C-alpha cells in the first residue's frame, strides 16, 4: 500500500517538475531581452521566485531569554510579506541557526549558511562577541551582512567591513544620551556602572564617560560581569559599598535580572538605568519570577530608567504597533508581545525596505550600493538611519523612557540623536506612519 502511494506521489512529483520546467522555459524564451520586469537568479541565494537569507541566533543558552524571539518574529513578518505576494514576486526564505551565543559555533554555522545554504545575505545575526568572530570572514566572502543585532560600533567600519551594516543605535550613542539624562535629572547623585565585560559594555561606558566625566565615577563603582559567570553578588556588594545611588547597567536581560535580584537581596535600592537591550519588561518579569522562584517580579522594575528607539509596545494608539501586533497575533501568537518581537518585526521591515530599494535583480555588490545611496525612511524607528557610503550606522538616536511599578513604560523628553564623537542634538523630525498594507 505504502509503496503504491509512494509511486503515485513520485509520478505526480515528476509531472509537476516537468510542468514547472516547461513553464520556466516558456518564461525564459518569451522575454529573452534583459528587461527589468523579469526575475533572474541574479546572485547566490536569489532565484526567480525566492530570496534566501540566513542568521545565527542564541535560541538556547544564557542569551536566549528574550532574544530567541527575535528571529521567529522577523520570520513572521516575512511570512506576512510572502502571503501578500512577496517582494518583486519573490518569496523570502529565512534560515536561522542556534549558535548558543558561543563564538566558535557562530563561526561554523556562518560558514554553513554561506557555503552550504548559499544565502544571499546574513541578516540580524545576534551578539557582539559572536558576530565579531565572523565579520572578517563574511566580508572576505563579499556577502551582505545586514543589520547586526548588536549596538557595538564595530559594525560601522566601512573601509574594513564594507558589507556589514548596523541597525540599532550603537551603545556609545545610547550611553551618551543616558548620561545626559542623568546629568539633567539625577544630578548630584553618585553614579556606578554595571556592564558586560566586552565591546557591548565597554562601548556603553565610553558614551557614559563622555557625558558624566570619566573621573566622576571611581574604579570601585565600575563593576563588570562575564556572561559565563552567573554569580554577580560580589559586584553588587562592591557597588553598594561604593555608595552608588544610580547604577547604569549595560547588561543582557538575564544579567539585569540577576543584578536586580542580587541588590534586592542585600537591601540595596539604587535608581537603575538600564540600556535598551537589557530592559525589556516582559522578558525581565519572566526572568525575575523564574530566578526567584516566584518571590520577586515586576515590582523590582519600578522606577527604572531606560531608552527606546522604537515605539513602546504598550502604545496601542501607534499605527506601527497595531500593524506589528496584528502580525504577531496571526503568525507567532505563542510568543509574548514584547520588545523583542517588535525588534524582530521592525528589523524585518527594514530588510524589506532595503530589498525593494535594491531593485528587481540585485547582485550582492549592487545591494550594498543601493543601501548606501538610498535614503531609507526610519520606518517604525523614532530616529533616522545613518546609512551612507561613509557610515554604516543604523538608528542614530534614542528617547529616554521610564518604567512604573506595574511595568508600564512611558517616554520622557524628546528624541535625541548623536554620533560616537559628535554632540547630542534634539531630533525634530516627526514619526512616520506605516503604508496601508504594512509592506514598504
Amino acid at each position, binding site marked *: 500500500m505504502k509503496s503504491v502511494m509512494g509511486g503515485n506521489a513520485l509520478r505526480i512529483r515528476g509531472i509537476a517538475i516537468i510542468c514547472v520546467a516547461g513553464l520556466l522555459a516558456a518564461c525564459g524564451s518569451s522575454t529573452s531581452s534583459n528587461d527589468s520586469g523579469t526575475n533572474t537568479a541574479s546572485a547566490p541565494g536569489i532565484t526567480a521566485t525566492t530570496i534566501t537569507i540566513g542568521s545565527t541566533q542564541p*535560541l*538556547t543558552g544564557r542569551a536566549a531569554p528574550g532574544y*530567541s524571539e527575535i528571529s*521567529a518574529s522577523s520570520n513572521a513578518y516575512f511570512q506576512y510579506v510572502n502571503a501578500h505576494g512577496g517582494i518583486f514576486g519573490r518569496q523570502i526564505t529565512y534560515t536561522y*541557526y*542556534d549558535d548558543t*551565543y*558561543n*563564538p*566558535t559555533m*557562530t*563561526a*561554523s554555522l556562518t*560558514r*554553513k549558511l554561506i*557555503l*552550504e545554504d548559499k544565502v544571499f545575505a546574513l541578516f540580524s545575526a545576534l551578539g*557582539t*562577541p559572536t558576530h*565579531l*568572530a*565572523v565579520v*572578517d*570572514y563574511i566580508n*572576505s566572502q563579499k556577502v551582505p551582512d545586514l543589520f547586526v543585532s548588536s549596538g557595538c560600533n564595530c559594525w560601522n567600519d566601512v573601509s574594513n567591513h564594507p558589507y556589514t551594516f548596523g541597525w540599532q543605535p550603537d551603545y556609545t550613542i545610547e550611553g551618551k544620551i543616558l548620561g545626559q539624562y542623568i546629568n539633567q535629572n539625577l544630578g548630584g547623585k553618585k553614579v556606578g556602572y554595571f556592564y558586560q*565585560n*566586552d*565591546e557591548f559594555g565597554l562601548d556603553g561606558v565610553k558614551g557614559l564617560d563622555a557625558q558624566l566625566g570619566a573621573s566622576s565615577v571611581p574604579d570601585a563603582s565600575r563593576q563588570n560581569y*562575564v*556572561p*559565563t559567570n552567573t554569580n554577580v553578588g560580589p559586584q553588587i556588594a562592591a557597588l553598594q559599598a561604593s555608595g552608588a545611588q544610580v547604577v547604569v547597567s549595560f547588561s543582557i536581560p538575564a544579567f539585569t535580572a540577576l543584578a536586580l535580584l542580587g541588590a534586592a537581596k542585600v537591601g540595596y535600592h539604587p535608581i537603575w538605568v538600564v540600556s535598551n537591550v537589557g530592559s525589556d519588561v516582559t522578558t525581565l518579569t519572566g526572568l525575575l519570577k523564574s530566578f526567584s522562584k516566584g518571590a520577586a517580579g515586576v515590582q523590582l522594575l519600578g522606577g527604572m530608567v531606560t531608552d527606546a528607539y522604537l515605539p513602546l509596545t504598550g502604545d496601542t494608539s501607534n499605527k506601527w504597533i497595531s500593524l506589528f501586533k496584528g502580525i504577531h497575533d496571526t503568525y507567532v501568537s*505563542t510568543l509574548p508581545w514584547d520588545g523583542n518581537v517588535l525588534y524582530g518585526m521592525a528589523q524585518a521591515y527594514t530588510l524589506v525596505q532595503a530589498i525593494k530599494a535594491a531593485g528587481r535583480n540585485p547582485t550582492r555588490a549592487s545591494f550594498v550600493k543601493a543601501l548606501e545611496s538610498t535614503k531609507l525612511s526610519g520606518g517604525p524607528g523614532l530616529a533616522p538611519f545613518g546609512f551612507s557610503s561613509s557610515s554604516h550606522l543604523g538608528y542614530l538616536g534614542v528617547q529616554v523612557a521610564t518604567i512604573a511599578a506595574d511595568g508600564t513604560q512611558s517616554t520622557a523628553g524628546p528624541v535625541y540623536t548623536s554620533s560616537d564623537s559628535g554632540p547630542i542634538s534634539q531630533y525634530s523630525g516627526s514619526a512616520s506612519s506605516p503604508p496601508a498594507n504594512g509592506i514598504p
Partner: protein
Amino acid sequence: MVAVRSRADRLVASTLRRHLLIALGAAVVLLLLSAQIGAYDDYNLTAVAIFAVAAAGLTLLTGLNGQLSLGHGALMAIGAYTTSLLLKDHRQLPVIVVLLISVVSAGVIGIAFGYAAARLRGPYLAGATLTLAVALPQVATRYKSIFGGESGLTVPPSAPPDWLGADFPPERWLAWIAVAAAVVTMLLLANLLRSAPGRAFKAVRDNEAAAALAGIDVARTQVLAFVISAACAGLAGALFAYWSGITSPAGFSLSLSLQLITAIVIGGLGSLAGAVWGSIVLVFVPLLTSGLASSVHLPSAVADNLPLAIYGGILVIAMLVAPHGIQGALRRILAIGRARREHTPGGGQKGVVDWDDPAPGT
C-alpha cells in the same frame, strides 16, 4: 605472482615502511577527496582531522597509558591561544612555524602538568585535569588585554599560496593543512606505539608494579605520555584556531574535553583508528541531527534540544551494541569473516583480541 607477493611482503615487513605506505595512501585518498567535495564539506573534513589529532593524543594517554584526562580541551586552548597571539603580531608567519610553536608551548605546559599528573591516580587525576579545563578559560577572561576576554582573539585565515590559483577555496587549503598534520601525527604515534616507549606505556597501564619490576620508570613514562598527548592537543588547538577564525574561552569549554573523551570511547579506546572514527562521529552526527530536527516542525523548545537528545541516544546505543567502540566492532566483524572463510568454527572469537592493543577490561 609469487615474486610479486614476496616483494609486497617485504615492502610491508618493516613497521615503519608499512606505516609510511598507509599514511601515504591515506594522504592521497584524502587529497583526492578534498578536491571532489564542496567548500563546506572541506570545512567539515578539516574539523574531522583536527579532532582526530586531539583524540589520537588523548587515546595515547587514556587508552594506552591509563591516565584519564578531562582537561584536553584546555590543552587545545593553549595551542589555539599561542597561534592567535603569534598571528596577532606577525600575520605573515608561515603556518608550519605557527603550528610547531603551538605544539611546543602545549608540550611545555604538558611537562609541568604531567609531573603533577604522574603523582595522581584515578578520580584524583580526573579531578586535577578537570581543574585545568575549568580554570584555564577563566585566565583568558581575567587578563582581557592579552587574551581578549570573552570575545577572544580573531585569527586571520591562512591564504592559499599563489601557485594554486586565485580561485582556490581557502577551506580546501586549510583541509590540506589539517589532513597533513593529522597524517603526520598518526604516523609518528603509530611508530611510537610499536617501539619501546609504546610498550612501556601499555606495561604501565596494565600493572604499574609489574612495569616497575621490569625496569620501567613508571613516573617518567607517565610524564612522557602526558607531554606527547599535550603536544597533540596543542597542534589540534592551533589548527582549530585557523579553522574557526576565533579563539575564545567559550570554544574551549569543559564540554570540548568531554567530547574528546566521547570520541575515543565511541571510536574504540586505545586504537588510533578508533580516534579517527570517533572524530567522524563527533563532527557529522550533530550535523545530521540538527538537520533532522529542523526538518520536522516542532515547538522550538523541543527542536532546539532535539539534536543533543538524539546525539545522546546514539551514544547510549553505540555503547550497548559496540562496547569496544567502532574499531572494536570492525575488528570483530573482520575476525568473524576470517573464521568463516577458514572454516574454523569458534575461531572468530580469537580474532576479537588485538595482541598489541587488548581492549581494557579484557
